[in-house]
């Protein structure tokens, strides 16, 4: 198994781009959160790739920490979605403007 590093990095960039498009285009908060998970995963892929290229496991540690932060982010984001839904039937992120001054 030996693919060039650039292949992995290009794949990571493509995945990151797909995630960004998901965040920008979709208005469903659940799918936006899933797109953010895609972003985390793309970044992790780049980290693991470079860790492998330089045989240095600092990248693995960093990717592990990113996974933990992603878990915390998903939990809090989903809690916010659930609360928003409880307060009003529409959960379109453009309609949620209660925090606006």
């Amino acid at each position, binding site marked *: *198994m*030996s*693919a*060039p*590093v*650039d292949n*992995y990095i*290009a*794949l990571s*960039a*493509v*995945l990151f*781009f*797909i995630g960004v498009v*998901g965040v*920008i*285009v979709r*208005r469903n*908060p*659940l799918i936006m959160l*899933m*797109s953010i998970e*895609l972003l985390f*995963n793309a970044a*992790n*892929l780049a980290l*693991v*790739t470079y*860790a*492998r*290229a330089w*045989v240095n*496991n*600092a990248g*693995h*540690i960093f*990717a*592990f*920490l990113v*996974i*933990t932060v*992603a*878990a*915390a982010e*998903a*939990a*809090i984001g*989903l*809690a916010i*979605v*659930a*609360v928003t*839904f*409880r307060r009003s*039937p*529409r*959960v*379109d992120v*453009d*309609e949620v403007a209660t925090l606006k001054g």
Partner: protein
Amino acid sequence: MIGFWILSILLIASAVFCITAKKPVYSVVGLLVNFIALAAMYLTLQAEFLAVMQIVVYSGAILILFVFVIALLSSGVRPFDVGPDKAPRIAIPAILFGVAALGIIVVTAIRSNPAVVKATGQDTGDAFAFGSVANFGEALFTTNLLPFEVTAFILMVAIVGVVLIAGDEGPGGVVRRKKKRAIEREPILKKERAIR
């Protein structure tokens, strides 16, 4: 090399399916395929422990959380309504900009770095080979002990935050309940005083 291409096609296809699916449940399925393919990709990069963590934490915990919230939101009296799900006006320029940035990244990556991921430490049967649990654990608990502890703190903050946000009555619920309890307690206190 063939494995890389199969996995990358699977990754991109499932990611696209995830962001284009009409219903969040289908998105979750796409995301599941994406996570598992990514775990396989980690295995090709000799990150064994991370591959297992990917499946346990992402597919096991985070996706179940998503499915749980989707089930919670669609089980009520009201249907789960997200409105027209129309893209904001800024979407088109943003996507164009994103395509340009993507092109720059890909072209730079292909031009600048012809290095090939070489196989090292493979098939040696060494417990401390690169990416193994032993190797990872040693790095995590010696060199990176402080980040590890901070991570534990972050998780605790997240748990407290989730309980506070999505607790019984939503924001302010804690305060309201305390007031109610105080009101309930008053007559009892009066009675106690009367007895004395």
